[in-house]
């Protein structure tokens, strides 16, 4: 029997978990290294640039808060795409991707909420306000937890994946609400100042570390995501092997 080629020519070749694992083994040290370098640069810039004339030193919280908030939405988008992959193309790795992304997304959302709250105490004078942006992000956090709970509640991974894919797609309604909540409602949270029509309104002094941190966070997400996917594939293989071993043991006992 000839060994199947591990070369990856197009996207559907990734459907083979062995090929995917080989790709991950090559890719992840580079991704992790790049993430570390960017974090070093981003953190250095974050702590050496000027403080804001009004906010003082607390402006540095933004360098963590904003990328984490972006990532919390991007992670859900990745999950929604994976859910589409599960339901439409039946891509075998799509459900692994959706399942692996949920805890990471919950982590980033939690980070965004905590840093925002730490910034809100000195700036707004309160830890928490029920404005539209904060509430919708909190709802996002609850949905991440609900999805994790749903995945844990079912023991058959294939069925859990399909059913949670439906829920992910229904919950995607929340993402545009989060994005536009600062424009639709007049709230305490400031409107978008980086990605907007007519260029960013934020000073380059703050923009550069912010962008570098954003790229670093994105790479961190992808590193964690592919490693989590690798773990999930290996976990399923171990489960299958254990089942085989148990069956073989049972057969031996029956024969004896």
């Amino acid at each position, binding site marked *: 029997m000839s060994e199947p080629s591990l070369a990856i020519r197009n996207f559907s070749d990734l459907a083979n978990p062995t090929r995917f694992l080989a790709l991950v083994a090559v890719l992840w040290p580079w991704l992790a290294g790049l993430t570390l370098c960017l974090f070093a640069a981003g953190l250095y810039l974050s702590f050496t640039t000027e403080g804001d004339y009004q906010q003082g030193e607390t402006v540095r919280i933004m360098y963590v808060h904003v990328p984490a908030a972006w990532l919390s939405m991007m992670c859900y988008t990745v999950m929604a795409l994976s859910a589409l992959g599960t339901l439409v193309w039946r891509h075998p790795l799509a459900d692994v991707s959706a399942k692996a992304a949920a805890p990471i997304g919950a982590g980033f959302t939690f980070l965004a909420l905590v840093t925002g709250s730490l910034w809100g105490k000195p700036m707004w004078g309160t830890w928490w306000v029920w404005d539209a942006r904060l509430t919708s992000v909190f709802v996002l956090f609850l949905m991440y937890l609900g999805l994790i709970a749903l995945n844990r509640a079912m023991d058959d991974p294939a069925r859990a994946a399909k059913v949670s894919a439906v*829920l992910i797609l229904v919950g995607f309604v929340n993402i545009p609400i989060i994005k536009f909540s600062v424009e639709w409602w007049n709230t305490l949270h400031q409107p978008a100042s980086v990605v907007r029509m007519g260029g960013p309104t934020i000073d380059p002094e703050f923009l550069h570390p912010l962008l570098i941190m954003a790229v670093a966070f994105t790479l961190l997400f992808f590193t964690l995501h592919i490693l989590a996917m690798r773990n999930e594939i290996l976990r399923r293989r171990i489960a299958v092997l254990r089942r085989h071993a148990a069956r073989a043991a049972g057969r031996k006992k029956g024969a004896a």
Partner: protein
Amino acid sequence: MIALLARDLKLSVRAGGGALIGVLFFMTVVAVIPFGVGPDLNLLSRIGPAILWIGALLASLLGLDRLFQAEREDGSLDLLLMQETPLVLTVFVKCVAHWIATGLPLVIASPLLGLFMNMDEVAIGATALTLLAGTPAITFIGAAGAGIAVALPRGGLLVSILVLPLAIPVLIFGVSAVYAAIEDPAPFLPPFLILIALNLFFAVIGPLAAAAALRLSSD
């Protein structure tokens, strides 16, 4: 379809259907609130609409896990899945029947409970009207959760956890419409129309997602 509607209604009002349990739960929740916040009538009349809305939300979530579970247990769910009419339509009709059996009694009971809360006539009328417009949306989006959790042995609590975040917009606009009706400067129509829009939106999304989930979780 009409036969299905009649069948579901009969099943839910006759013995063992449990349609009235939702109303009882609603009344109990509302009756417990004065013990928690104290019998201050001014305070109660101020927070009354919000309490009625939260009670109705919880009560309609309570019955949701029965939406498909009983059918799954006696096997008629498979018949519904196999028949020729589109499953989305079947789910929609089941949602309507479920709403008439559990949601409508909540709306009818709300004026009485409004009196307990020392609310004035305008507030009572506005609450009943917004509940009438808002509770179908909760049922529709809850159908999606019920379809997802139908295969789980103890899905009831999970349905509430999954559906509650999605039902928050309904609660927000329902309560804000009531307060807009009571307090003079704020206009009543915009939040009320958004509430109806949410209703229509969920009437599309809910049955679609529930039908997809039911197909996927049937073996």
